[in-house]
């Protein structure tokens, strides 16, 4: 499994994927620094209070995290959907699987290698962005590790899904399904929050079910919660608009949901291994 994981990371490096990610991260962090710096200087010139500025910066950071989370999820879909399907289509997998390499080791090695690349990208870009925002604005989230970990978790969940789909479907179909599923889960999460505020139990039920089916939105709540200053959470208590917003979280995901996400990834990968074992090559 580790041989295949190393091979996968090597492939990302040789195919210049790592360089592209590094360049994209550098561009994104530079733009973030420039944007937040402009925001801070304009706000201070206009006499905005430090508390309001802190609020504004935290909201910008959450929005950046949302966009970055989407990029990570798309990266996971782009990497994961061809991971098995393309190797099977072009015959590369057959040559390797005729060796003493189990299909489980091959599939888990592919996932692990891609997971290392994606988590590495999430960690480097996430901490750089948070650090740069901290330097130019003075605002640091209460626990910077938490949002980065949840962002990476979201991507790993989607990577597991795309790898499973890759054992069943051609790459484009698998990637499209994964991205659409992610979007639907996010929308179900938004509707669930609205349902909770207005007391619509059906909406809440749909949202809860969607989190079981695909726990990415639950992890997104962890990202938001980790980036918010505590005074925002306190101030939003009882405020309809704030509590219904997808960019606000009064608390992180409950531990049971986090544990479910881990179980979900393991179960989906196990399913993928079973499917690949059943497949005639």
């Amino acid at each position: 499994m580790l041989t295949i994981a190393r091979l996968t990371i090597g492939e990302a490096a040789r195919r210049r994927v790592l360089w592209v990610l590094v360049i994209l991260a550098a561009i994104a962090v530079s733009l973030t620094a420039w944007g937040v710096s402009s925001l801070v200087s304009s706000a201070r010139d206009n006499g905005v209070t430090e508390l309001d500025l802190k609020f504004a910066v935290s909201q910008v950071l959450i929005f950046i995290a949302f966009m970055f989370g989407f990029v990570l999820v798309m990266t996971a879909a782009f990497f994961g959907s061809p991971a098995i399907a393309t190797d099977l289509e072009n015959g590369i997998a057959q040559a390797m699987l005729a060796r003493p390499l189990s299909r489980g080791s091959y599939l888990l090695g592919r996932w692990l290698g891609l997971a290392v690349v994606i988590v590495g990208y999430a960690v480097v870009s996430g901490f750089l962005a948070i650090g740069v925002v901290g330097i130019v604005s003075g605002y640091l989230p209460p626990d910077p590790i938490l949002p980065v970990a949840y962002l990476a978790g979201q991507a790993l969940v989607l990577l597991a899904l795309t790898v499973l789909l890759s054992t069943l479907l051609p790459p484009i179909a698998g990637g499209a399904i994964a991205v659409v599923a992610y979007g639907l889960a996010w929308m179900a999460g938004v509707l669930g929050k609205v349902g909770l505020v207005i007391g619509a139990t059906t909406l809440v039920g749909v949202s809860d079910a969607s989190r079981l089916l695909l726990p990415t939105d639950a992890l997104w709540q962890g990202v938001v919660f980790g980036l918010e200053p505590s005074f925002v959470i306190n101030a939003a208590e009882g405020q309809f608009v704030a509590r219904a917003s997808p960019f606000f979280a009064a608390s992180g995901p409950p531990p049971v949901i986090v544990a479910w996400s881990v179980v979900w990834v393991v179960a989906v990968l196990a399913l993928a291994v079973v499917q690949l074992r059943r497949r005639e090559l």
Partner: protein
Amino acid sequence: MPGMPRVSLDMPAVEVTDLRKRYGHVEALAGLTMTVGRGEVFGFLGPNGAGKTTTVKLLLGLARPTSGSGRVLGAALGDLEARRQIGYLPELFRYQPWLKAREVLTLHGELMGMPAARRRPAADEALALVGLADRAGDLVGKFSKGMQQRLGLGAALLGEPALVVLDEPTSALDPVGRVDVRGIVRSAAGRGAAVFLNSHLLSEVEQVCDQVAIIDHGRVVASGELDTVLGQAATEVRLTGITESDLPAIERFGPPTFEGDLLVVRPMDDALVPDLVSQLVAMGARIQEVRSGRSSLEQRFLELVAGDRQPAAPPNGQGR
């Protein structure tokens, strides 16, 4: 393979009994039974869609049989331990285009469980064997199809496996490459490896194989040593001036029959042809043509499998 209890050196390289494989309504293999001995070069022949590649995939565990049983190097089909001793060149050969040739082979060495210190020398030996020594540091993505097939052949021979499975090993090679492959196959057999050569290039098989099996519609229609499969040598004489009543006079050469204006003596020792001709002339025959020898593998193959595919097959199907 010392220390590998599931892989036996005493048993045949391949032994399958009544192996069947069904894909939906299509029966790809309909009860295949065959044995490939150690150190043998075994030619596995058949028309397109006969079940050759399916057989290879079953032997390697890439597909599962619907029924039947088999052992490869003494272990169950698909056994991981046995695969350490199997080299395989797939029909659809494709290797990581972003790796260098040597890296592909060291990767395969690693997957085989070869010790780290041995991988590079083994890779270089295999590359030299297939004529790619000077391209070891080049990216596979820059290779021509023929070079990629040579690389695949190198991967199949890496680490001197006990069984080498080659699925159409010369499909992308030029004539020089084909000659090279014949030498490589012979040398692998010379060091004791069994070579399972899946091919439809009959001349290639004829030149290197000790044993052959011809498969059609998922069944073996002929198998055994090449001489046995090709059948007995015969002599054909196109002539006039001789009738059925004269035949007893030449029975000492072999059993004679008439097929139109063709006198056929089968079996018959080639060395007796001049004597037969002298005898016939002495009997008043006017001889127009004499042909002697055995069926080529191509002729034999056509006799066995082409009946329902090529109605225009040669009329004297037991030709030379």
